[in-house]
């Protein structure tokens, strides 16, 4: 089966080429989507559906829908809270939510090195400098930044202190 590479779709992300020192971080993979990757899962698709499809997950307690607010509610369920700054903050994990028109389209996640990671549809995962690198015809604009305490960071820090 021939799967597409982001290399053929870079025209959709002009900022990625012009401003970002981005790099590919995974092979092409269709077993998870960008929202799953943003909540650190790489084996399911996270999307609201009518429940008729295998391998697609959406928390029961989160209202189903595709408005900007529905994606905010999903990340709120995972203990993220709205924030204004995409800069790295020690001890926190951040996500950026993207939308075109009234519909959410994508999410990216900040890594502990301060860079951002995105699963690009059925194409590769990439690492990019800023969440705004992906703004453009493909995913629209970042409409919300959110953050939560990074529990694994706290754990690592506690172990170092001991």
């Amino acid at each position: 089966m021939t799967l597409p590479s982001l290399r053929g779709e870079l025209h959709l992300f002009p900022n990625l080429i012009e401003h970002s020192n981005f790099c590919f971080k995974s092979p092409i993979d269709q077993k998870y989507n960008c929202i799953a990757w943003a909540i650190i899962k790489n084996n399911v698709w996270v999307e609201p559906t009518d429940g008729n499809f295998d391998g697609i997950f959406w928390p029961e307690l989160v209202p189903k829908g595709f408005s900007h607010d529905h994606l905010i509610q999903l990340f709120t369920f995972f203990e993220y809270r709205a924030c204004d700054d995409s800069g790295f903050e020690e001890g926190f994990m951040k996500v950026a939510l993207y939308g075109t028109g009234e519909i959410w389209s994508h999410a990216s996640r900040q890594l502990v090195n301060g860079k951002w990671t995105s699963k690009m549809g059925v194409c590769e995962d990439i690492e990019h400098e800023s969440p705004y690198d992906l703004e453009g015809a493909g995913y629209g604009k970042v409409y919300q930044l959110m953050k939560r305490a990074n529990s694994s960071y706290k754990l690592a820090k506690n172990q170092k202190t001991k």
Partner: protein
Amino acid sequence: MALISGYHQSLERNVKTEVVLDKIKMDSRNGSFLKDYINIEQLRAYTPATTYDVYLETKLRQLTSKLFSEISVNSAARDIVQNKQFKEIVAYGEAIVPHILNSLKREPSILIWALNSILKSKISNKPLSIQEASNEWIKWGKNIHLV
């Protein structure tokens, strides 16, 4: 179980069809009749099973490649299941199921959603990953000798 028994009934229908198809196999060996039956339903009715299988296998590969190149950076299952190529795969119905299962054997994929659409059933009500659901579908196919 309802799913499996329904599939067995469908296989019985296919066996009867194949008996009829055997009768025209001799005439079709020169392959010339194919160009006269470009309509899919006619092709399904008049093509020997083996030739139709080759056709379906090729068609599935073509449609899947086109599907993925069209969705590319889009992560929305809602768009994938509405895609023209996806709908065409589903439109082939039960005949294409063994070919999808073979494709899943080569690589677990979101083609499991085509199985969900064709057979109007999930393989499990448990929350499975794409890989796990693909494996369960293959197991189901093996149990009823489809793969």
